């Protein structure tokens, strides 16, 4: 761990996530966006999200203040913004590599044609089976539209990363889903075990994959990466005290960059800045403040780096050094404190279900209430066999 002087003089980050909107046309059960998504139609009120001019001004300000190299456009669903092509053109003109994190359902040939230049699309494919994907995405037709979107990207010779979010409902589908992703032209695969947050914690018992499930998935991915040469990144932290990830040599594992140079600070639709997309803590607002002032002066950043979860203090030094305390943002969201460990760790222990004793989840924003999607008739349907388009 670097010392205090190093932290104070650390270089500015080069990667940012812009959450363009909180609107989303899917209703994913596992959604781990910090604020949750507004489950509304594209013509619904925009809840104060910035317009095109405000947004491009903000991007220009960010570029003037930091050495930006990559901007990922996220949401909600970023393709719900009609001005996405304009925003991407602006980013491209700045010489910055844009990434569009999308559910893929709106990647029509026209939208791909209007947005593909220099863009990497990161599309979530939850299963090779239509019903499983649609169940997790919370919407009928989501799978078919996402498959069509991925094909449209391939036909336009765009860059595609396939994302698999591992839950109890789809872990058994990983191999075929990854193979389908490769066949559809994905140039890389991202594997994210479900990350817990204030909005999905209530489904943890039904969705959070067990350590054994994750081990089996990593075996599959390790084999596919070796067989096809496709890069595989396990991005959401898989804490090594839960699963020993060291034996999966073809899978690249992500770790928390702890508010340092490698971090991807996240800017929400209102201009609020957070450490990452999981974190519920607003550090400041980029419309009113300089990024460097937030980055160097906000005391929360040092707290975030230096606070170790109590459960990690006695951990083996090698693992501790590797995992950096796991996903602190998840702990902050679910427990309201950085002194608790990522609840994925707690719930993965044999006694996890009874020992969690979490305080009420912490959400920065008010959450729209719906009936539990598990209880809706849509989710009572029987799962089918292999998906067909």
């Amino acid at each position: 761990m670097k010392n205090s002087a190093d932290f104070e003089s650390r270089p500015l980050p080069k990667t940012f996530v812009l959450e363009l909107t909180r609107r989303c046309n899917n209703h994913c059960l596992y959604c781990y966006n910090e604020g949750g998504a507004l489950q509304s139609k594209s013509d619904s009120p925009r809840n104060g999200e910035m317009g095109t001019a405000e947004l491009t001004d903000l991007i220009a300000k960010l570029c003037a203040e930091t050495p930006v190299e990559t901007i990922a456009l996220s949401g909600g669903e970023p393709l719900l913004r009609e001005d996405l092509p304009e925003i991407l053109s602006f980013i491209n003109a700045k010489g910055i590599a844009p990434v569009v994190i999308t559910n893929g359902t709106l990647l029509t040939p026209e939208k791909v044609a209007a947005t593909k230049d220099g863009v990497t699309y990161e599309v979530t494919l939850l299963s090779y089976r239509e019903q499983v994907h649609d169940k997790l995405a919370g919407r009928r037709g989501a799978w078919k539209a996402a498959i069509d979107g991925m094909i449209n990207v391939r036909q336009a010779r765009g860059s595609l990363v396939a994302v698999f979010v591992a839950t109890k409902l789809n872990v058994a589908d990983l191999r075929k889903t990854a193979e389908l992703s490769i066949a559809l032209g994905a140039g890389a695969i991202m594997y994210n075990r479900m990350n817990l947050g204030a909005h999905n914690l209530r489904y943890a018992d039904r969705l959070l994959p067990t350590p054994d499930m994750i081990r089996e998935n990593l075996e599959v991915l390790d084999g596919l990466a070796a067989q096809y040469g496709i890069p595989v990144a396990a991005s959401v932290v898989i804490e090594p005290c839960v699963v020993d990830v060291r034996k999966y040599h073809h899978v690249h594992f992500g770790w928390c960059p702890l508010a340092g140079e490698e971090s991807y600070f996240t800017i929400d639709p209102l201009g609020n800045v957070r450490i990452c997309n999981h974190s519920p803590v607003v550090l400041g607002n980029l419309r009113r403040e300089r990024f460097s002032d937030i980055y160097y002066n906000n005391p929360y950043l040092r707290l975030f780096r230096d606070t170790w979860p109590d459960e990690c203090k006695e951990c083996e030094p090698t693992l501790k050094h590797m995992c950096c305390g796991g996903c602190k943002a998840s702990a902050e969201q679910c427990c309201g404190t950085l002194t608790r460990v990522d609840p994925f760790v707690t719930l993965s222990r044999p006694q996890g279900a009874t020992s969690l004793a979490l305080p009420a989840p912490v959400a920065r924003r008010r959450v729209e209430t719906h009936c539990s999607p598990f209880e809706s008739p849509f989710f009572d349907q029987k799962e089918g066999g292999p998906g067909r388009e």
Partner: protein
Amino acid sequence: MENKPAIGTVAFKDGNYFLEVEGKQHAIPVGLHVDVAQLKQLVGQKVEIVSSEPKSFVIGLVKAGGVAGVRPPRIICYFPADPNLFGVVQEDARAALAKQLLNEGILSQANYEKLG
């Protein structure tokens, strides 16, 4: 992250860059986080390979002798896979997989044909 330096040689063949280690060639995909101009300067030279634990993935190349070489790509939590990781699936392998999925009923005939 703990680094374990090893030595390899950067090679260039048919428009692609490779890292030769112990007689094996490993592709070095170029992209956002790998400066091609810097990589070009390293062709034929011995480099230290900086790997990160717990994975065997190369995160950077440093010219042997300590001169900075290629800036390491970044794989970080949740952020999209690095664009420099693209382009290593062989087209014939992809096509064979598509055919297999067609035969298994996972890919429809119409979509199979669109994939080419």
